[in-house]
């Protein structure tokens, strides 16, 4: 591909259709992350011991830290335990997807596909596809809204956005409603933009200085990948906290 210049795609490339569902290279990468997580989880569960090994101790420390932090933020032990799987999975899935992107198998194996039968990379980082990040944002959004409705009550929760007690409160409610919906865009484009920018940066640097220079940038991208995963999970947690807070009158 080198002789054709740098290939940057804002959208994922379709490889084939499966039961009329298009399968893109980012979806394959997302399945790779999912299966990696499942294999690790399965192996860990099989070797779960009362006296933990190194890896089990690491996982336990992570879970305990996150759980205690969530309990602290939500001030509700039961809710924290209910929400934990979603927050943790968001973090792990984004982290694994972001880190897997630096494996040499990504964007190096090409296959003939698409309408024009051009060469298409078999694997492309899952979070460089807005479909993935928007899906995560939708999950985060519905988690927040459903928990808000369940905890506060439907009418009280809706009263946050549609308040007819005074013109000022009505305006504030509408602004709240718009900002609630804007989160979807913010969530999805933040992750998408960060990861795509990192990928493009490394691609450009690779084009000009193929040796050594990409290494520190890749290290930095690992850090960015971790930060983005943490931000996505943390923001979901904080928005849940805001949603379950009692409406002030």
């Amino acid at each position, binding site marked *: 591909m080198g002789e054709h210049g740098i290939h940057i795609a*804002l*959208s*994922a490339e379709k490889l084939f259709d499966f039961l*009329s*569902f*298009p399968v*893109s290279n980012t*979806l394959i990468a*997302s*399945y790779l992350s*999912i299966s990696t*997580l*499942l294999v690790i*989880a*399965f192996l*860990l*569960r099989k070797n*779960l011991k*009362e006296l933990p090994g190194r890896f*089990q101790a690491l*996982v*336990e420390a992570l*879970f*305990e830290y996150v*759980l205690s932090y969530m309990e602290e933020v939500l001030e509700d032990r039961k809710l924290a*335990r209910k929400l*934990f*799987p*979603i927050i*943790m*999975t968001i973090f*792990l*899935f984004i982290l694994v997807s972001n880190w897997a992107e630096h494996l040499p198998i990504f964007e190096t194996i090409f296959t003939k596909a698409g309408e024009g039968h051009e060469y298409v990379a078999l694997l492309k980082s899952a979070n460089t*596809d*807005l*479909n*993935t990040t*928007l*899906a*995560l944002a*939708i*999950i985060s959004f519905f988690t927040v809204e459903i928990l808000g409705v369940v905890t506060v009550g439907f009418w009280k929760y809706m009263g946050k956005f549609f308040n007819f007690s005074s013109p000022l409160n009505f305006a504030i409610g509408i602004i709240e409603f718009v900002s609630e919906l804007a989160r979807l865009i913010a969530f999805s484009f933040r992750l*998408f933009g960060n990861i795509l920018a990192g990928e493009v940066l490394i691609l450009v640097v690779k084009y000009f200085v193929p040796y050594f220079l990409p290494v520190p940038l890749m290290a930095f991208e690992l850090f960015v990948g971790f930060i983005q995963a943490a931000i996505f999970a943390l923001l979901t947690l904080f928005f849940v906290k805001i949603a379950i807070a009692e409406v002030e009158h």
Partner: protein
Amino acid sequence: MGEIFAIFGVDWKVLFVNIFNFGVLVIALSYLLYGPVIKLIDERRRKIEKGLRDAQKAKEELESIKASEKKILAKAQAEAQEKLLNAEELAKKEREEILQEAQSKALTTIASAKRQAEEEKKAIMQEAKDEIAKEAVLAAKKILASS
């Protein structure tokens, strides 16, 4: 909006597949990883709590045992001391009694021996006197006969 989505290749079907996959992942990880690990952590925490409580209890018990042991030991020592003192006193008294008895016995024995000796002496003296008188009579008879 539709144009923006087209640029980024947003497809409702792919979106749905992604959401579905994530849901499956959440459920699978809850079942495989979160549930067992958190249960394990909770169980271990309970166990450690119980262990700490037990250790505290054992320590308190040990302390109380030690205290009662000390008390019993002190009591036993005091009792032993008292008994020893009593025994010593008793022994002293008995010794004195025995000594006194022995002394008095000895005195009476000496006295009776003295008396006996005196009587024997008297008897012997008497006997001697009688013998001498007899001899004297015999001698006198002999002298008289020869003359």
